[in-house]
């Protein structure tokens, strides 16, 4: 079927079997390999994307569910240089192997949208659907916390 949607701010049209997974469409058909897959069962969060600005798991979404939605992947989270979260992940050392990082950043973006001033406990809760096997999460929490402070100061 023909599926129209907005992908990283640009109109996209694909012709795909409606039952293919969104993560495969993004990675295989559209070359957006920043969206990762770690479990295929909605348990690890590596495939997180934003659907109409909310974090969703692209391994649990079918192609047809992309229709008429606004989709943001890690490649499109910022249209002007690095997103503040990306910048903070780098400077706070929140990346090791980096495989969970795109999903982690998109989940953090959703968290900050709903709760611009989270406590560290809030951040941990907000990221509890994203598994990271390398970092122990502390520097990720540092990065998200620093981003929220930075945005507060910028106001």
């Amino acid at each position, binding site marked *: 079927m023909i599926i129209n949607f907005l992908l990283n701010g640009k109109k996209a049209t694909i012709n795909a079997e409606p039952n293919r997974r969104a993560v*495969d469409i993004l*990675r*295989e058909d559209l070359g*957006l*390999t*920043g*969206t*990762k*897959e*770690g*479990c*295929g*069962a909605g*348990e*690890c969060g*590596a495939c997180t994307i934003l659907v109409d600005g909310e974090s969703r798991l692209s391994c649990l979404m079918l192609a047809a569910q992309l229709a008429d939605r606004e989709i943001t*992947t*890690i*490649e499109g989270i910022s249209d002007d240089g*690095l997103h503040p979260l*990306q910048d903070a*992940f*780098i*400077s706070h*050392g929140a*990346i*090791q*192997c*980096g*495989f*969970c*990082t*795109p999903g982690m*950043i998109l989940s953090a973006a959703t968290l900050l949208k709903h709760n611009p001033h989270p406590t*560290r406990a809030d*951040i*941990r*809760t907000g*990221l*509890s*659907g*994203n*598994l*990271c*096997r*390398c*970092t*122990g*999460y*502390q*520097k*990720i*929490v540092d990065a998200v916390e620093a981003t929220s402070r930075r945005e507060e100061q910028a106001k």
Partner: protein
Amino acid sequence: MNPYIPEIGKPVSRVDAAAKVTGTEKYAVDYYGNNLVWSGVRRAGIAHGRIRLVDTAAALQLPGVVAVLTGKDVPGTNRQGIVHKDQPVLALEKVRHCGDAVALVLAEDRATLQKALSLIHVEIEPLPGIFTVDDALSPDAPLVHEEHPQGNVLLKATIQKGDAPSAMKGCDIVLEETFHVPVQSHTFIETENGVAWQQEDGKVVLVVSTQAPFRDKWEINHALGLPLDKLQIIGPYLGGAFGGKDGATVQCLLVLAALHAGGRRVKMWWDREESFIAGYKRHAVRMHYRLGARQDGTLQALSCRLYYDTGAYAHLGGEVMALGMEHAGGPYRIPHTLIEGWCVYTNNPIAGAMRGFGVAQVSFAFEQMMNKLSAKLGMDALELRLKNALRRGDQNTSGVTLPQSTGIEDCLSRVQQHPLWRDRKAWKQGAGKFHKRGVGVAAVFNSMGYGRGLPDSALAKVELTQAGCIRIYSGVSDMGQGNTTAFVQIAGQILCQEHTAIELVQPDTERTLPSGSAAASRTTYTYGNALIKACEELRHRLTGRAALMLLADTLDDLELLPGRVKNLASGREIPLTALAAMMPPEDRVCISQFLMPVVRDKLDTGKEFVIGFPHLLFSYAAHLVCIEVDELTGAIDVQAYLATTEAGSVLNPQAFEQQVQGAIAQGIGYALSEEVLLKEGHIVNNNFATYIIPGALDVPEMISLSVAAYEPTGPYGMKGVGEVGMNGPLPATACALIDACGIHMTRSPLTAQRILAELQKQQETP
């Protein structure tokens, strides 16, 4: 970011960080290609049996199937394995664990692949299975490998020093206990995968998520008989590995597939369940300990028997056990030791390398023995450890003299001085109703490098490019540990170039040089040492060639500066681009080799180990954990964590902390929840819903302190820090549980269910 010179000792951000946060870093799994063929494996699904039939006819007839291959189609020996070549690429006669591959399918798309795999008709006649160490060792046990001369015993070995049996008789106190630790899964987020294709000249190129690209090449050569010069392995950054991608996973299967794909690219990507079933694991171990001490707490004698279950194939089972045995007595001075080990084949999933390689297991046992002793003596847990801590110049429990940095005493002292330890009594009193608090400590260590018998070598290559940049050719994988960034710091330090002018080539058997596996806490140490030599040679060469252009009659006046060489006496400069244009290609490349130093003591023990024993260098750590136990559920909540680590000098404080924190988190998983549950060789919990690794809420805020030390043989005084942190959380938590509730656990993980059962037992006994 403004250009800066990456230097030693600074918290330099990872060179791969920008690509990773923007999603542009290409991991092996991000390689596809036009006209891609998908490949996958039909697995045995039965733990032990004789293959009667693998009928591929129906699968072959399915439209969209490119090829279906079985063991009969494997050229070469059809045997893979790092030390023992005992594992078939595709099983032909018998299967030895549920994850054994019996057929390989190539198909046009994923859906067809799955359908074809289900159409393969496999008949396996079941054989009695070996699922425990006792089963394996029983005299009339069925054999997992009929051809193995020692039956189901992969390796039996002994390490002894002094006369433990006699010394034990003279001890004031002798304590005895048996411990069990389970199978742990690495659960890196990027599962095993790769892409391979055959070029027109016959060469097969393999892009793969691997910790050992050069060894992969030799493995494929052996298993498939493909000449070495017809193989190229490319190893991009990995999405985690922790030991689980050390050894063949998809490599031989993919190259075999590529030979049947007519030049098309073939991709294989194990899903999470397959990664659990077929991937490597941490060994489950049973450990019998006897520890003898004087009344004043001085350790006198240790005797122990360790039983490692290596599963269906050897992988590095013997070497994992060797390291466990070498660390079985902890970072302590014990004059008399008798340490025996059995590593046995079973029909369980394959156990192999994992961070804290054999050592995470024994750390639980030896530290619980120390806790038992401190309870018996009524002696402070930290004092007892300090009293027996190894010092530089001592002999360790294998009889190796330690002339190198040995910082366990300093690590323990730092913990002792810390408020979390000093103020623990007040903190414990703050526990709420039906909760109890405890503070525990553990002293751990981890060796570095391969040990004797296998040269721990790296070949560093560095080039001045035509564009005037410095290019480092790294032959050793970066699975997330950050060695690559350390290499850039070394080049920046010596060659004084800005980070934007330093490039990196990740492992590629055609471009980089063999530098061993990303393992054994060795990557930065060994490759870094080689790179220092190569960079110094390049600096000397660049100033030497610049002297010709700048008419300098002595090199003393010349300085290599960002983008140029300057004659400080005359003020004249030459840009590196101009220098590069003058120098022929071979003159712009420096290559240097480094070999890790080895133990010089002539030990009359451990002779069964062909490789991997003994080790000269160790990193040390003391861990402290504050836990709260819910008496109604038995659940442990980890509330605070402190790690003091001595791993020589710190080249990059941020990267050092990353290693410590990440290892603690994995260790907390190992301590509290992670246990691969097996039923007749089948994994019961093969997904993230049932195999629970720590999430952001399960890991506390951690404090990591580095204890100053200088390791003279290390690059800028460093030692490896990748593994030691893994060994602390389980014993520290077990110690805290004793402190909180008086429960001495002998089996891990320390689940709520197990603790609740112990709490109930306490209530029943008045």
